[in-house]
């Protein structure tokens, strides 16, 4: 009897499914540029990644309100990864062929980036990993499809150390000092370490490595170590729920927030809002943008998207750090397509392969950025066949108890140090994979 009920239920579900499948592809085929969005709206990074996804979606809506990319409308479809690599791979497979083919992926997870790095060359889809993923992928000679635009972990780490050194009065003052690195025990956290080690060798400061197991909510032991060893500075490579946990533990152990510095992913409003005044003095390095509620693009987003009731998230988050990162990510994705259109034909939908050319030949000058509403938010970005990063500018901002304020002027990562590191790592990757560097002819294609 039971079996029969089950069979009936299954049959019913199946007919339902078939009906649904028939109803879905009713949407009209329109000429659209498809931007897949891998989101982390649930899981350990949800407070931050949600803002990123909202910013990304909102900017794409704004592009459409402005008339599209030379007339081509943008389309975003989301797929939830919950920051898990296997779900991310599934999402990638699901979205890559939809709506005429994906233009560019931005996985927002270093783990997923590593997995997709092996897949995108086969599918010929570029991948933008602003400020995360593989740092060595800045070397376009080896990583043809990866674009860590506007910076990566090593840029963040280097500029942050520059800021600390400047505060202390010069690099030589760091000699003999102790810097603790609290990092997420995964490729995301470990990617920061080479630059820290390089700089520590150069200037003779001591590094204390403090790995925190994922997802990073268990940090008591780490901060007891910090209390015991009293490092002069703490650098935090944290993301999601891990950041507020770290700051709360620091408060509990009485470590001064003025001595704590976060990297690019570790200093945003959702991390500090609930802690409020107690987190005053905490700083984080920001590549290019920070919190920009006063920027022209934020105002335009409020006017043209949120005021029309089309905002993806709450209005209050427009202009916040991670929201802006989503906006900047979307802007870079769109501008690459625009650059590609210059070559392959305006008013046309670009394939992933064509868009890749656009990302490789991106030239966002200051007037162009200003016109897009990014005045004061960003500095020029220009990429080439060998340089897939485009700029290495950063600033440091500090939490004043309620909001972020700039604590430093523009800093630029030292190319003399980063370039050899990137090249060595990329060469190692190429040797492992038996790849040859791209030659001049390949750069033209």
């Amino acid at each position, binding site marked *: 009897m039971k*079996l029969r009920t089950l069979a009936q239920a299954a049959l019913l579900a199946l007919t339902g*499914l078939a009906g649904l499948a028939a109803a879905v592809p009713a949407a009209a085929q329109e000429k659209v540029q498809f931007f897949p969005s891998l989101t982390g709206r649930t899981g350990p990074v949800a407070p931050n990644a949600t803002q990123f996804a909202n910013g990304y979606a909102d900017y794409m809506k704004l592009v459409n309100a402005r008339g599209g990319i030379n007339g081509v409308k943008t389309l975003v479809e989301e797929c939830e990864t919950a920051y898990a690599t296997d779900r991310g791979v*599934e999402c990638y497979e699901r979205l890559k062929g939809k709506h005429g083919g994906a233009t560019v992926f931005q996985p927002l997870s270093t783990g997923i980036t590593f*997995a997709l790095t092996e897949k995108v060359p086969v599918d010929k889809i570029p991948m933008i990993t602003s400020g995360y993923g593989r740092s060595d992928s800045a070397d376009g000679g080896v990583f043809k499809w990866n674009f860590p635009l506007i910076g990566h972990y090593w840029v963040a780490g280097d500029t942050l150390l520059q800021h600390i050194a400047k505060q202390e009065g010069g690099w030589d003052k760091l000699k003999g000092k102790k810097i603790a690195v609290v990092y997420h025990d995964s490729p995301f956290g470990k990617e920061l*370490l080479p630059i820290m080690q390089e700089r520590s060798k150069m200037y003779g400061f001591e590094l204390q490595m403090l790995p925190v197991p994922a997802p990073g909510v268990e940090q008591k032991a780490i901060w007891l170590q910090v209390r015991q060893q009293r490092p002069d500075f703490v650098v935090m490579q944290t993301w999601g729920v891990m950041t507020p946990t770290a700051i709360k533990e620091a408060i509990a152990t009485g470590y001064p927030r003025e001595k704590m510095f976060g990297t690019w992913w570790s200093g945003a409003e959702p991390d500090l809002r609930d802690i409020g005044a107690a987190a005053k003095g905490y700083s984080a390095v920001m590549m290019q943008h920070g919190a920009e509620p006063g920027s022209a693009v934020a105002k335009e987003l409020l006017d043209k998207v949120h005021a029309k009731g089309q905002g993806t998230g709450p209005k209050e988050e427009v202009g916040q750090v991670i929201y802006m990162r989503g906006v900047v990510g979307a802007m870079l994705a769109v501008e690459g397509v625009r650059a590609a259109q210059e070559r392959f034909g305006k008013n046309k939908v670009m394939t992933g392969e064509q868009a890749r050319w656009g990302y490789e030949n991106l030239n966002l000058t200051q007037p162009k950025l200003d016109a897009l509403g990014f005045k004061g938010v960003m500095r020029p970005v220009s990429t080439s066949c060998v340089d897939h990063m485009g700029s290495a500018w950063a600033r440091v901002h500090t939490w004043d108890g309620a909001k972020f304020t700039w604590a430093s002027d523009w800093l630029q990562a030292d190319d003399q140090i980063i370039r050899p590191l990137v090249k060595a790592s990329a060469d190692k990757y190429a040797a492992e994979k038996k790849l040859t560097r791209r030659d001049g002819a390949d750069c033209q294609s």
Partner: protein
Amino acid sequence: MFYRENGQFKTSYRDDQRVFPILQDRFAIGLLLAFALIGVPLFADEYLFRAILIPFLILSLAALGLNVLVGYCGQISLGTGAFMAVGAYAAYNFLVRIEGMPLLGAILLGGACSTVVGVLFGIPSLRIKGLYLAVATLAAQFFVDWAFLRISWFTNNSSSGSVSVSNLNLFGIAIDSPFEKYLLCLTLVVVFAMLVKNLVRSHIGREWMAIRDMDVAAAVIGIRPVYAKLSAFAVSSFIVGVAGALWGFVHLGSWEPAAFSIDRSFQLLFMIIIGGLGSIMGSFFGAAFIVILPIVLNQLLPALGNVVGVTISTAVIAHTELMVFGALIVFFLIVEPHGLARLWSTLKEKLRLWPFPH
């Protein structure tokens, strides 16, 4: 009427000992294999291969391995993720460090390394039983996680701790299309499923089951618990290790220890509990349930929303997926505590009596 062995007389021992003694079973398995080999490639697209079928096959293999240990020998293990990790990292090291290492060789050697680690962590099973053993195998999980995160030799000194493998090739044939990958996984799964099926019918399998049902009684009738338990650990972790290597090489391409975390161990344990302990078919049912169902739910909900005319946000979909999935687990465990495989055998029983089932 259709599924009845009446009239199928066995006239030799050979006939009597066949894997599938009933003609209809042989026929059904043959059809299933033909479907997997010829039917599926005809309609499956890249997404189905890469995102659903390949992970399903690999995790079925891992579940099959775990079922040997938990389902047949009764030793509960929470170290499956660890044994998968050992298989994956060992295979990676064999492939990278030894020039000209064939892919299949690396994968099987990965399994062999996993066997060694499995037997090592299986030794406590001689003294501790049941849930206490599960806790002891947790040690394997944490130790292996630690080793692959901290000892950089295992990851070929990669600065990020993530390793990657690409350009797979088997006997000179490049394995890069989804279909080829699927075929590789399918072949290994079929081979191992046959192997396990034969093992559990043999004297070794009967020893395992005797130990599972009552170890004191088993020892009294002359079964050596050391031998039976450790052989179960060995066979199980070998298969799990091979599955781990496939998961890294074929499915992910690039992985970190988090791919084989404690969550993976739990996931596999749930697979065999829901699928059916001590059943080969159950491993496949369980893997299908845990791998495919969430993805189907995830895609079904927006479609459902479209029909009604509501756009459901990504976060709501993700949450609903978890809730529905959880509810379905509870539902199936209540309706059939012995797992989906029992439903399968009940069905066969009914078919045997059809058209007069009672």
